[in-house]
């Protein structure tokens, strides 16, 4: 049914997370094996856990004319867009192709729900919205995409993908289909999620939050640490940028098992992996590095470690980077896609920070400390609530499967 995918060029990319603002900060944190997590100083009432908070969101202000979009999530989006010359690259694409030929396809789990939470904390005495919060576009999942589309002055297709923690991985697939069918020439993909009470107290209610900094794939792991992040990539046809790294393939699948726990045998995760390898025309042995979903929840890591053992030999290196950034939920797909691209560019296998006593289920593929080696092909796994799975395959420029 499927054909080999024609690769796309990733002509620009950036990420801002608890490790800092932009690519240099991400790389610096990874190289120095330094976690960006800190004790929770965010929630509206105390909650004993660690978080991946981005420094500088509060002092970010939106440009003149876009002030009505102001909220934490859109501030983080704007902070993220301003890194690594990304705005200039998008401007160039807009001028090259025309504003209606560039799509904005972003993933988010909770978008600007933090603004709705704040509104409910200070409703008028009659129970109505205070005047300054009567901004309908802010109280909907599409807030992020609508803001970014306005900020980038784009007029093409715009889509919010909100499939929990696979959201900002799946947008690469949306973009590939639209470019393949000639609907657009380029796409801004990525995602933004910010810390908010909904996810902190929601995951707390599910008893999925660790009281300490998360320890992915550690034998004594006891839950996730929630983080926030913004990340973006610009996708164009490969022939327009032969020197750029490439999106080789993607896979999407559904567990059909449970709303908040993964399929016990990793059925959906494996379907997504196989879909990505097939579209990319890759054998498992050609994969040099996999950035795992690795949330540090008991179940995810158990199932994912088994999948790595089943599908890959030790020559394929694997790690979770949630110990650096926390689980950035709807932004995890793009943050870890960016880490996969950094791994290719710098020959860095990031070590699995936090896994001090490795779970015995983990095969010898796991990189517990940083390793330096050439990486031609890197995958990124992203799995979400509702059993929603995605896997992305990237390669260095010129790689031929």
């Amino acid at each position, binding site marked *: *049914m*499927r054909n080999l995918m024609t690769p796309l060029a990733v002509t620009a990319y950036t990420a801002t997370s608890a490790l800092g603002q932009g690519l240099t900060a991400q790389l610096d944190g990874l190289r120095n094996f330094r976690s960006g997590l800190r004790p929770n100083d965010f929630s*509206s009432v105390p*909650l004993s856990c660690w978080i991946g908070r981005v420094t500088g969101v509060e002092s970010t202000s939106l440009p003149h004319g876009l002030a009505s979009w102001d909220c934490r999530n859109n501030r983080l989006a704007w902070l993220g867009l301003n890194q690594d010359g990304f705005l200039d690259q998008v401007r160039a694409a807009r001028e090259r192709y025309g*504003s*209606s030929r560039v799509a904005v396809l972003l993933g988010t*789990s909770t978008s600007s*729900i933090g603004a*709705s*939470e704040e*509104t*409910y*904390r200070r*409703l008028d005495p009659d129970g*109505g*919205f205070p005047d300054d919060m*009567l901004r*309908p*576009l802010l*109280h*909907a*999942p*599409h807030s992020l995409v*609508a803001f970014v*589309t306005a900020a980038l002055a784009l*007029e*093409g*297709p*715009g*889509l*919010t*993908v*909100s*499939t929990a923690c696979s959201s900002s991985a799946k947008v690469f*697939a949306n973009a*590939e*289909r*639209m470019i393949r*069918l000639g*609907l657009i020439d380029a796409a801004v993909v990525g995602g933004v999620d910010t810390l908010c*009470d*909904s996810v902190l*107290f*929601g995951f*707390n*209610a*599910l008893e999925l939050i660790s009281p300490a900094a998360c320890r992915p794939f550690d034998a004594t792991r006891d839950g996730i640490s929630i983080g926030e992040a913004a990340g973006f990539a610009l996708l164009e046809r490969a022939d327009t940028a032969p020197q750029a790294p490439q999106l080789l393939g993607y896979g*999407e*699948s*559904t*567990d*059909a098992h449970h*709303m*908040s726990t993964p399929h016990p045998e990793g059925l959906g995760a494996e*379907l997504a992996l196989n879909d990505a390898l097939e579209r990319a025309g890759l054998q498992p042995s050609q994969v040099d590095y996999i950035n795992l979903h690795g949330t540090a929840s008991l179940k995810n890591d158990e199932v994912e470690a088994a999948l790595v053992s089943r599908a890959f030999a030790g020559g394929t290196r694997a790690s979770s980077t949630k110990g650096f950034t926390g689980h950035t939920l709807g932004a995890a797909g793009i943050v870890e896609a960016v880490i996969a691209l950094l791994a290719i560019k710098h020959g860095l296998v990031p070590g699995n920070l936090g896994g001090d006593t490795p779970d015995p289920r983990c095969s010898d593929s796991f990189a517990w400390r940083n390793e330096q080696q050439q990486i031609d092909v890197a995958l990124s796994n992203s799995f*979400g*609530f*509702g*059993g*929603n799975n995605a896997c992305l395959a990237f390669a260095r420029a010129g790689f031929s499967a």
Partner: protein
Amino acid sequence: MSTLRVYVEGIGLWSPQMADFAALQTLLSGSTPEPPAARPTAATLPPNERRRAPESVLLAVEVAGQAVTMSGRDPAALACVFASSHGDQPVTDYMCATLAQAPMEMSPTRFHNSVHNAAVGYWTIATGCHQPSTAIAAMRASFGAGLLEAVTQVIADRRPVLLVGSDTRSSGPLAEVTHCEQPFGCALVLAPEASASTLAVLELELTPGLPLTPPDPPLAVAYLSNASAPALPLLAMLVRGSGRCQLDAAPMLGLQVDVTQVDAENIDAKQFT
């Protein structure tokens, strides 16, 4: 850019006035259809899930089940695109109210039901569907953007896709900004080729965004009363069997949809090639 062509094999519809697509046919012929029960039946869900499922899930599963039954397709074989502007508004209202008053008392079930992909999650669990599934949003362009996404999947991967567009009624203080006075949901099963199940052909083209006017009565009120109801002009066209309508796919981007009847000779010819 060529025209995008897909084949409609099933149609689902639910609102407080219309139990299914046949009710829209009744309404447009000048009669008043029998209204449905207050809650959508959502017969695809197992009984225990049906009792626990939030409103957004019942609504989406109801219209999805109608469309898939009409198509005769196996639901496990359909990729899923579920579009909704606001997700489950009663759950969002509960979450915001609880967080403002007693955050430690958050219900874990309500929290996992608050994800935008809750409806497609329940649907795929109930039908054993492992195909790609997605949940999207684009304000009042959600249905148009979802249709565009579904059609790109149908054509790019030559696979049948289930499209659902639904929004619940607004709930609590949020109603002041979401303006969904009543629930509305609809669904289409879309296929890459004509078959004996084809009900209509859709040809879509991207256009610059155009100002949209509400349809004439009896659909005018429903059109404005829910963020997914901008699908109604297309559904009305499907009742008539042919015509052209304009949807929004994004704030500055329109989607022109031509509805025609399938050419029976083409189907017959295909079966021999």
